[in-house]
C-alpha cells in the first residue's frame, strides 16, 4: 500500500498560503478502514479522538485508550480547592465520544507500543493494531527529584498535579489544618504542566484559609527565580492576603535539600520548615508510555510542528504536556489546540480530506481571589524548528475590579466550552 510520508504532507501544506490543498490519497483497500489508536483521554487525546471520528464521518476507526471512566480535569481543580467549584463539576465521562461520535472507548492502560508491528499492548494483554497512533498521556512524576519524597508517601503532602482524588485529599488537609498552622508548597522546576498552576493553587489555598483559618501561613519554597504571571500574582497576594504568603526562591533558600515525610519537615539552607499541611510537586516528564514507545529525547517527546508527528516516528503524533511544543506552554488549552492540528493531519494522511496550514492558540486563566481573574495567552504558527508565537497578551497589574470579574466569568464560560469540545 502507498503511504504518504511526512515530506509529502509538509510539501503539500507549505505551498498553499491561505487556500486549501487536496493531498494524495493513500490506497487503503476498499472495505478496510484505516485505524487510529489514541492513548490518553485528556485535553489532547479526547479532542483528537473526537475530531478524527467526527470529521472522518465513519471513514476511520478510532479507538481511545483511557483507564479512567470519570476524568477529572486538572484545569479548574484549583478552583475546587478554593471552594469555587464542586468536585463533580470538574468530572467528565466518555459517554458522548462513544455514543455520539462512534469512538471505541477502551478503559485500560496502554503498556507498550510495538512500532515495527504498529500495535499497542494493553494491561489486559490485548494488542490493538493502528495505522496512525496518537499519544497524549500527559505527565508522570520524577519522584526522586525531591530528596525524601516518594510515591508511597505522597499522600502526606500530595502533589495533586493530576487532579482527581489527590486534589480532594489536599483540600481536606488544608481545611483541617490547625489554627495558625503552616502550609508549605514546593512548586516544580521548569518545564512542567500548567505554568501558572502552582501560583493559582497558592492563591486558592490562601482564599480558603483567609475565610477559615486567617492566622495560618503559606510558605512557598520555589526551585525557580521567577514564575508565570508573577507581577499579577504578587500584586494580588499582597492586596488580598497581606503577609499570609511568603514566596522564597532557591537563590534565598538554597533549594529544598530534603523532605522528611514522617515529620513533615522540609529542609533548606536557611531553615527547616515544619508543615502542618503541604503540597510537593516534583519535576515532571512525559507519561511513561512515551519511554516505552521510544519516542522521548530526555524527558519529553520532540515533535514536527506542522503535524505534531513524533520527530522519531512519522506514524505517531504526540500531543499536549508530553510533547516539546515550545513556544506553547503545557496546558489543556494547548493540548486541545494541538489535537485539532494532529486530527487534520491524520485525516489527510489516511483519507482524501483537505489539509490546511496549522494554527495553534492558548490562553491560561488564573483566579487570584474571589472574582479576580487574570489571563495570559498567545496565537502560534508552525515554524521550521518549533511552534512560533504570532501574537501574545497578558492581563495588566492594577486592572479595575469589573474587568477582573469579567475575566473570571470568561474563564468559566471557557471551561464549559472546552470540556464540551473535548467530551461533548
Amino acid at each position, binding site marked *: 500500500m502507498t503511504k504518504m510520508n511526512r515530506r509529502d504532507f509538509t510539501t503539500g501544506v507549505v505551498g498553499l498560503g491561505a487556500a*486549501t490543498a487536496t493531498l494524495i490519497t493513500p490506497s487503503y483497500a476498499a472495505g478496510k478502514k484505516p485505524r487510529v489508536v489514541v492513548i490518553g483521554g485528556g485535553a489532547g487525546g479526547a479532542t483528537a479522538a473526537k475530531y478524527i471520528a467526527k470529521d472522518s464521518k465513519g471513514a476511520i476507526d478510532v479507538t481511545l485508550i483511557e483507564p479512567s471512566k470519570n476524568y477529572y480535569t486538572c484545569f479548574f481543580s484549583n478552583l475546587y480547592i478554593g471552594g469555587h467549584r464542586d468536585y463533580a463539576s470538574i468530572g467528565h465521562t466518555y459517554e458522548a465520544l462513544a455514543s455520539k461520535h462512534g469512538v471505541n472507548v477502551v478503559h485500560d492502560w496502554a503498556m507498550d507500543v510495538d512500532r515495527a508491528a504498529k500495535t499497542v499492548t494493553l494491561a489486559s494483554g490485548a494488542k490493538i493494531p493502528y495505522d496512525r497512533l496518537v499519544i497524549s498521556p500527559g505527565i508522570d512524576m520524577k519522584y526522586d527529584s525531591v530528596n525524601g519524597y516518594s510515591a508511597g508517601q505522597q499522600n502526606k503532602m500530595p502533589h495533586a498535579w493530576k487532579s482527581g482524588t489527590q486534589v480532594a485529599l489536599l483540600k481536606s488537609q488544608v481545611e483541617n489544618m490547625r489554627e495558625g498552622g503552616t502550609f508549605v508548597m514546593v512548586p516544580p522546576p521548569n518545564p512542567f504542566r500548567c505554568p501558572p498552576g502552582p501560583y493559582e493553587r497558592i492563591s486558592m489555598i490562601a482564599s480558603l484559609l483567609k475565610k477559615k483559618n486567617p492566622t495560618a501561613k503559606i510558605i512557598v519554597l520555589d526551585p525557580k527565580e521567577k514564575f508565570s504571571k508573577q507581577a499579577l500574582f504578587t500584586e494580588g497576594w499582597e492586596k488580598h492576603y497581606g503577609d499570609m504568603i511568603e514566596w522564597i526562591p532557591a537563590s534565598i533558600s538554597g533549594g529544598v535539600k530534603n523532605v522528611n515525610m514522617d515529620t513533615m519537615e522540609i529542609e533548606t539552607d536557611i531553615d527547616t520548615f515544619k508543615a502542618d499541611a503541604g503540597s510537593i510537586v516534583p519535576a515532571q516528564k512525559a507519561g511513561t508510555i512515551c519511554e516505552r514507545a521510544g519516542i522521548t529525547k530526555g524527558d519529553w517527546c520532540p515533535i514536527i510542528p506542522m503535524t505534531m508527528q513524533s520527530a522519531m516516528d512519522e506514524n505517531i503524533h504526540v500531543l499536549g504536556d508530553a510533547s516539546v511544543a515550545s513556544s506553547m506552554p503545557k496546558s489543556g488549552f494547548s493540548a486541545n489546540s494541538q489535537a485539532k492540528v494532529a486530527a487534520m493531519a491524520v485525516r489527510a494522511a489516511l483519507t482524501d480530506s483537505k489539509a490546511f496550514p496549522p*494554527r495553534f492558540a492558548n490562553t491560561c486563566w488564573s483566579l487570584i481571589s474571589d472574582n479576580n481573574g487574570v489571563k495570559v*495567552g498567545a496565537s502560534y504558527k508552525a515554524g521550521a524548528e518549533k511552534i512560533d508565537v504570532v501574537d501574545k497578551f497578558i492581563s495588566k497589574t492594577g486592572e479595575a475590579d469589573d474587568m477582573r470579574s469579567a475575566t473570571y466569568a470568561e474563564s468559566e464560560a*471557557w471551561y464549559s466550552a472546552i470540556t464540551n469540545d473535548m467530551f461533548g
Partner: protein
Amino acid sequence: MQLVTKKKLGLCLGIFLISTSAYSGGDPEYGEYLSAECVTCHQANAADAQIPSIEGMSEQGMIGVLKLYRSKDLDNQSMQTVTMRLNDEDIAALAAYYSSLPTSE
C-alpha cells in the same frame, strides 16, 4: 469592562450592517476548519455566558465584529490576538460558515 456582551455584540452588528460595504463569498468549508479555534471558547446555546454563542450570526455582522477586534477597536485581548492573524479571506470564510448554522438558544 473589557469583554463584549451579547448586547454589545448586537450593537456592533447593527452599526456594521449600515456602514460596511459587503465582502461576501467566503468559503464555508475553510470557515469550518477555522472555527475549530473558536469552539474552544464559544459554545452553542451559551445564553448567559460571558463568551457569547456565535452560531447563526449574520454574515456581515460577523465580518464587522471580527474586523473591529482585529483593528483593536473592540477590547478583548483574546479576541484581538485571535483576529490579528486572520486575513479578509479568513474572516469571510468564518462568517460564511457561522451564518450558515442555526441560531443558538
